[in-house]
């Protein structure tokens, strides 16, 4: 077969030269035209039939249906546009596909952690030219906190597609019985947690007030910096973990509460409930914990579990020193990229624009996947914002003090190093907090330096 022969020839060619392979790799991954388009596809345009591929992340079956439904409507409205939908892809899968020269046309990622990295490496196309041509005014369309994590060095590298906010979920009855008000500062949170904890006769813990351990469920939202009024990096881009004492205060707070229960007790709790944070065996639902930090989708999960749980949602408590910032929280969301390797960038951007700005689609999807809509218009149109549980979360997202950690070309690695340090301190493997934080800052600085070398 001729094609086989050609392939084996190229196989040998590749084998022949190591340097050649590097060049080939570069060819595979680039191929992106750096300049943007002069014009955009208008909704009224007639257009050649085009099929684009849209990748999204892990979904429950009903979420897949919601996405497919929205994309089918897109096809009905613009019959020239056919969308092939592929769920269950994460950033690693996307990276692999890009490296193989098989990037999808649109990639919807569950987290913005790699926005700066993808942008810096040219994995995704900057959208500014496309947005200009399509006359989309970003600042007038998306809330500012959603723009923080979709930009890198003034380039719009992704668009927000639904947003997340984290709140403190609490069992109303338990707090009322204990005579505790929802806490606003971390020391109030500790006091409440201790009061709400119920022990068995043998000293083991029957019910926890609040689990602070940073690798549990969505607790990492507590340690992004917002709750301590600080940021990963200072104005010069240096990691602040050693320099800003608030990080140490945050960690000490965490460790003190953890130690009050006993690390072994907490570990058992985490191991038992970690696989069930998103289902009916979630400890807030089962009554094994009185308060927990979780994302807005938990409202939907609790509804799905069909329990009679009476719960409230308030902003996550903040470090006492910055109690004036109470009300703010980690604001983050799903992001949609236009991969640089897409062969139909114009059409892909058109789909991307529809997906990220269409009010009916955003509110409908938000209802299905239990997220918050991500444009001013869709937020206004959304009927859930006055809901007892959704309302506070929408406010947390809209709070002027809400933000997400700064993104750098190092991607998610800085968060991983920081997470490892926290776990070392929590489990008692590291005892010198000052030294640990200094080392963490040093490691993160080194990673950032290496990433742009």
């Amino acid at each position: 077969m001729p094609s086989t022969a050609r392939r084996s020839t190229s196989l040998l060619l590749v084998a022949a030269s190591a340097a050649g392979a590097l060049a080939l790799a570069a060819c595979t991954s680039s191929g992106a035209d750096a300049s943007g388009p002069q014009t955009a596809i208008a909704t009224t345009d007639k257009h050649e039939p085009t099929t684009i591929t849209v990748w999204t992340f892990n979904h429950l079956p009903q979420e897949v249906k919601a996405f497919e439904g929205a994309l089918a409507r897109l096809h009905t409205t613009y019959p020239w546009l056919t969308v092939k939908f592929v769920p269950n892809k994460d950033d690693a899968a996307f990276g692999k596909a890009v490296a193989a020269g098989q990037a999808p046309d649109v990639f919807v990622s569950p987290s913005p952690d790699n926005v700066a990295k993808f942008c810096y490496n040219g994995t995704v196309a900057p959208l500014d030219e496309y947005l200009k041509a399509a006359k989309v005014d970003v600042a007038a369309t998306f809330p500012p906190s959603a723009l923080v994590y979709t930009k890198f060095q003034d380039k719009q590298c992704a668009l927000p597609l639904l947003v997340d906010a984290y709140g403190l979920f609490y069992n109303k009855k338990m707090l009322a019985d204990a005579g505790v008000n929802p806490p606003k500062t971390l020391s109030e949170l500790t006091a409440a947690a201790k009061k709400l904890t119920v022990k068995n006769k043998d000293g083991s813990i029957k019910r926890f007030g609040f689990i602070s351990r940073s690798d549990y469920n969505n607790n990492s939202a507590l340690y992004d910096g917002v709750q301590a009024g600080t940021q990963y990096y200072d104005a010069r881009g240096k990691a602040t973990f050693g320099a800003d004492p608030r990080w140490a205060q945050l960690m000490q707070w965490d460790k003190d509460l953890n130690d009050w229960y006993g690390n072994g007790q907490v570990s058992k709790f985490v191991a038992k409930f970690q696989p069930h944070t998103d289902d009916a065996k979630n400890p807030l639902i089962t009554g094994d914990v009185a308060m927990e930090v979780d994302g807005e989708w938990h409202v939907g999960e609790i509804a799905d579990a069909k329990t009679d749980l009476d719960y409230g949602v308030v902003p996550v408590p903040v470090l006492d020193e910055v109690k004036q910032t109470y009300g703010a929280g980690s604001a983050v969301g799903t992001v949609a990229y236009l991969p640089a390797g897409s062969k139909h960038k114009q059409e892909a951007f058109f789909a991307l624009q529809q997906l990220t700005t269409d009010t009916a689609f955003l509110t409908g999807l938000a209802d299905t996947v239990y997220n918050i809509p991500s444009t001013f218009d869709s937020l206004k149109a959304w009927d859930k914002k006055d809901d007892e549980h959704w309302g506070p979360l929408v406010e947390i997202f809209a709070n002027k003090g809400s933000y997400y950690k700064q993104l750098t070309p190092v991607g998610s690695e800085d968060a991983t190093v920081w997470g490892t340090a926290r776990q070392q301190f929590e489990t008692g493997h590291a005892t010198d907090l000052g030294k640990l934080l200094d080392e963490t800052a040093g490691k993160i600085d080194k990673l950032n330096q290496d990433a742009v070398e």
Partner: protein
Amino acid sequence: MATAVSPRLPAAAARERDRRPFGRRVLEGVAEHALAVALSAAFVLPLLVCVVTSVMTQQQAGTGELVPQPLHWGNFREVFEVMPFARDLWNTLLYAGLSAVGIVVSSVPVAYAVSRMRWRGRNAFFVVVLATMMIPAQVTSLPLYVMYAHLGWIGTLKPLIVPAFFGDAFSIFLLRQFFLTIPEETIEAARVDGASEYRILRQIVVPMARPALAAVGLFAFMFAWNDFYNPLLYSGNSASGQTLAVGLAGLAKSAHQSAYQLQMAASLMFLLPVLLLFMSAQKVFIEGIAMSGSKG
């Protein structure tokens, strides 16, 4: 010296044992089997847990109970809804079947050359063959990924199947062990008759080595069935290349994370083909493994 002191013959000893009282025989039987039964329990427990969990409800799975109540057979059907089980099964069959064929076809001549042909450098060559067994996939996968990407093979089964057609060190080693047991006279007689090496291989060695070929093919099939790293890396990203191992691992960390009953049902269906294969070719299998442990 010692021989003179105890002149009992084995047969006499056996007769004596038979004369022992019945109760003692039972006790001895229990003592003899107690350890074996205890060990069997340890080997069977995980499989038992897997089987019973696969027919539990979501509520009951993972609770530590071992009796499914009620029996929930629907899990096996549901697996097909939560993951593309049939498609992944087909991909796995393709990978395992074709790579087994490739490994047998390509390894037999090499094994023959290093066992029954005489040439300078043969031993050094064999050492090189053995040495390639040591090199982990992780050492070679970065450039191979680049190479496969350039060929457009990423996301297909080709990176898994094509290399199988270029010989496999372990299989060569195993076949060599077996080829060495073929009497020298048989082969030399054929040579004297003017048979070519190719003919000797095809008409004498291969027919005599059928069990070894079966063992090698079986091992290759099982390896591919079990393989996770290569499919994860090269083919798992796409629908046409995802295998069961990757699909199953995905099921465990997807939104169905805590659905132990589905994971166990899928695992059982994943195990079943190789279990049947093993049951039908147990002898070949066990002998092949025993052979891999014997030194050349």
